[in-house]
Structures are given as structure tokens and as C-alpha cells.
């Protein structure tokens, strides 16, 4: 396994405020109670529906999950007597909650709003249906809570394949990226790549949020790529489909000559196909990266050029 400079993974959490204020959903959330709890932490992308808890079974109410109240819950509460309603709400708030989300623009009983204010549990309301809201909240939180790491490298989109170039400082990653840009490929990030794991095995890389499209080239200083080359050579995020480790050529080192063995580099426990690329004068890296991508594209379609060569050779050798 190759040692990578990787940033410590920050603890994964989101505040209720992040969900309330995000422009990334179309939930049109309004805050109808408990605004003092906006700093409460959401720790899981999975939501819960509050139905069973309102009916008395509160054991599995998770503090770090968004609690949904939809039509079923509201109709249930309407059927209760004042006394039963008070008890139901008391039982629910006996557990700590981060926040409650009411769907379909429904009007909750006032006693619920009072309890939320007292317990500093924000109540958010959206006009959309529960099913839509669940998808959007889960999507937003999965993104926000995704395991992440950062590595020193360059992420490019080459022929629509996400290519992560990494290797020691000064090996020529940025120069290679510049060549690839001039050939019409797109840059996602130079120098620092933030990698997030979405779902089980999808890695997505982006740049640092503030200075994503900048590059430092020795002798030229810091460049703004958007100004120099335009928006069409840049891409905000890209999946990571191929890793290229750039290493200094050593004459006594053994490099892959056949290309029939597969190796992988793990990021956040997800394996990514790895190519180790020795760097030496006369080896034009951008060209080599482009070819490595073409090979990977063929492999993704189930065809390996070098294996095919070996297969043909074996046939030849076995002829009587």
C-alpha cells in the first residue's frame, strides 16, 4: 500500500441549521418552532418517522436522526383526547431529539410547538410530500455526512474518466495537468483533492471550496485557470475511476512491462485501479496519462489489450 499524505477525517456531523439553510434542496423549509435548537447535530442520513414513538414506543428514537411527521402522525394525534395528546408529546420529548420535520404543510397541534420551544428542538415544515422530502433530506445528509479525506494530488476528467494523479511534490503533477488541459481535458482540482465516499463504493473528488481552480507552477507562480483557459476546461466534481501514481524512474527498479496484472489503491476503503507511472526525461506524461485512460476505458468494457496479446502469444506457442 502506498503511503498518502491524507488529511485527518473531520468528524462527521451536520447541524439542523445546515439542513434548514441549504440551497441544495427544494423543500422550502420554514422554521415554525424551537429555533434555539438550530445548532443541534444530525449524525445520520437515515430519517425516522415519529409514528410509533407518538403511539408510545419510544425506545428506538435516535437522537441524531431527523424525525418525520406526516399525514399519518397528524391524523393520529387529532384522534387523541387532550390528556392523551399531552402524554404522547411528553413521552416523545422524554427522548432527546435533534429536530422534527413536518411534511405536506400540515398544521401540528399547538402543544407540540410549545414542547419543541421548551426543549429546543426545531420544527421544520415543508409543503412537499413525505416521500419527496425523505429522498431530499437523505440525499442532502448523505452528501453532508459522507466519509471524506483529502490527498495531495490532481484530479482530472480525461475522456470522461476521473483520473487522480498523485506522487511526491515536484514530480510534475501540475505540469502534466496543464498539458492535459491544453489537450482539451478538464481539471477538477490541483494540489488538494477532497475525496468523499457516497454510498458503498462511489468516490467523488472536488477541490477546496474557496480556491478550487488555481494552480501553482514553479517559475510562473499561482495561476487562475478560469481566467486563463475559461470555464469549459474546469469541472467542479468528478468520480475517481483511475489512480496514477507518478514515481521517479530508478534504473534498478522493476516496472510493469506486460500490463497484465491489476493493482489497486484504496481510498476510504474503496479500491481504485492503479497505474504506477515512472517519470523520466523523454517520457511525455500527458500522453502517457491519456493512453492509460484509453486502456482503462477498454478494461471497463471487459477488454484488456495486453491480456489479448498474451492470449494470442500463448496460442502461437502451443501450436504443434
Amino acid at each position: 500500500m502506498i503511503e498518502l499524505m491524507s488529511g485527518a477525517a473531520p468528524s462527521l456531523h451536520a447541524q439542523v441549521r445546515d439542513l434548514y439553510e441549504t440551497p441544495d434542496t427544494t423543500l422550502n423549509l420554514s422554521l415554525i418552532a424551537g429555533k434555539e435548537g438550530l445548532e443541534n447535530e444530525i449524525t445520520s442520513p437515515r430519517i425516522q418517522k415519529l409514528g410509533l414513538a407518538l403511539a408510545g414506543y419510544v425506545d428506538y428514537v435516535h437522537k441524531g436522526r431527523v424525525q418525520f411527521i406526516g399525514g399519518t402522525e397528524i391524523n393520529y394525534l387529532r384522534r387523541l383526547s387532550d390528556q392523551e395528546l399531552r402524554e404522547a408529546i411528553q413521552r416523545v420529548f422524554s427522548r432527546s431529539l435533534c429536530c422534527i420535520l413536518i411534511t405536506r404543510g400540515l398544521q401540528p397541534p399547538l402543544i407540540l410547538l410549545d414542547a419543541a420551544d421548551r426543549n429546543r428542538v426545531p420544527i421544520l415544515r415543508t409543503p412537499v410530500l413525505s416521500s419527496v422530502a425523505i429522498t431530499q433530506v437523505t440525499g442532502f445528509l448523505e452528501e453532508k455526512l459522507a466519509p471524506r479525506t483529502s490527498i495531495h494530488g490532481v484530479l482530472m476528467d480525461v475522456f470522461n474518466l476521473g483520473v487522480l494523479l498523485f506522487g511526491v511534490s515536484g514530480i510534475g503533477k501540475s505540469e502534466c495537468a496543464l498539458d492535459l488541459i491544453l489537450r482539451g481535458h478538464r481539471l477538477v482540482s490541483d494540489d488538494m483533492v477532497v475525496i468523499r465516499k457516497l454510498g458503498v463504493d462511489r468516490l467523488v473528488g472536488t477541490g477546496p471550496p474557496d480556491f478550487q481552480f488555481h494552480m501553482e507552477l514553479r517559475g510562473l507562480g499561482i495561476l487562475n485557470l478560469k481566467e486563463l483557459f475559461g470555464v469549459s476546461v474546469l469541472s467542479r466534481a468528478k468520480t475517481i475511476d483511475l489512480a496514477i501514481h507518478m514515481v521517479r524512474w530508478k534504473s534498478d527498479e522493476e516496472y510493469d512491462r506486460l500490463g497484465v496484472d491489476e493493482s489497486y489503491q484504496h481510498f476510504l476503503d474503496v479500491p481504485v485501479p492503479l497505474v504506477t507511472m515512472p517519470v523520466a526525461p523523454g517520457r511525455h506524461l500527458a500522453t502517457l496519462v491519456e493512453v492509460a485512460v484509453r486502456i482503462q476505458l477498454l478494461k471497463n468494457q471487459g477488454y484488456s489489450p495486453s491480456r489479448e496479446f498474451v492470449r494470442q502469444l500463448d496460442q502461437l506457442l502451443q501450436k504443434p
Partner: protein
Amino acid sequence: MIERTVRIQNELGLHARAAAKFVRIASQFESDIKVARLNSHEEIDGKSILGILLLAAARGTDLNLRANGRDEEAALEAIVGLIQNKFGEQK
């Protein structure tokens, strides 16, 4: 310059991984190393993997090895040893 003839003895012949071993050993020496099928004039560079592969030397093929340089003796000894040892393969 020295010269040796050696016969490929392993069942699979000079296949891809065997060729990789051949080239790895040849590259450890400073001498020029040339390889040809016996009685052929097509000579290839013993440090070129593609060249070795294109020999397509099946079992029973005789190869003519030539080395030229300071460590020519050691180079041919190592390569002949590899071939006679069936590239470390069972059969």
C-alpha cells in the same frame, strides 16, 4: 563477444511472464545482448520485452544468444541458467 545456443525446455515456451523474467535478468547487465532463433538473421534486443515476445519461441526452439561487453560471460551464464531452469516453472 561470446555466443551460446540454448533450447527452450519448459512446456509453455517463452510465454509472457517468462519473457518478463528474461528481460529483467538481461537488463541487470551492462553488456549488449542479442537473441535470434537458430539459423535466423532476425536478431532482437534481449532487453526488449516486445522483441522477446515476438520470437514466439515454443518448447524445443533453439535460441542463439550473443553478448558483448564487460560482463558478457556473467550475462550469458545467467540467461542460459534461467532457460535451462525452465524459468523456475515445474514443467
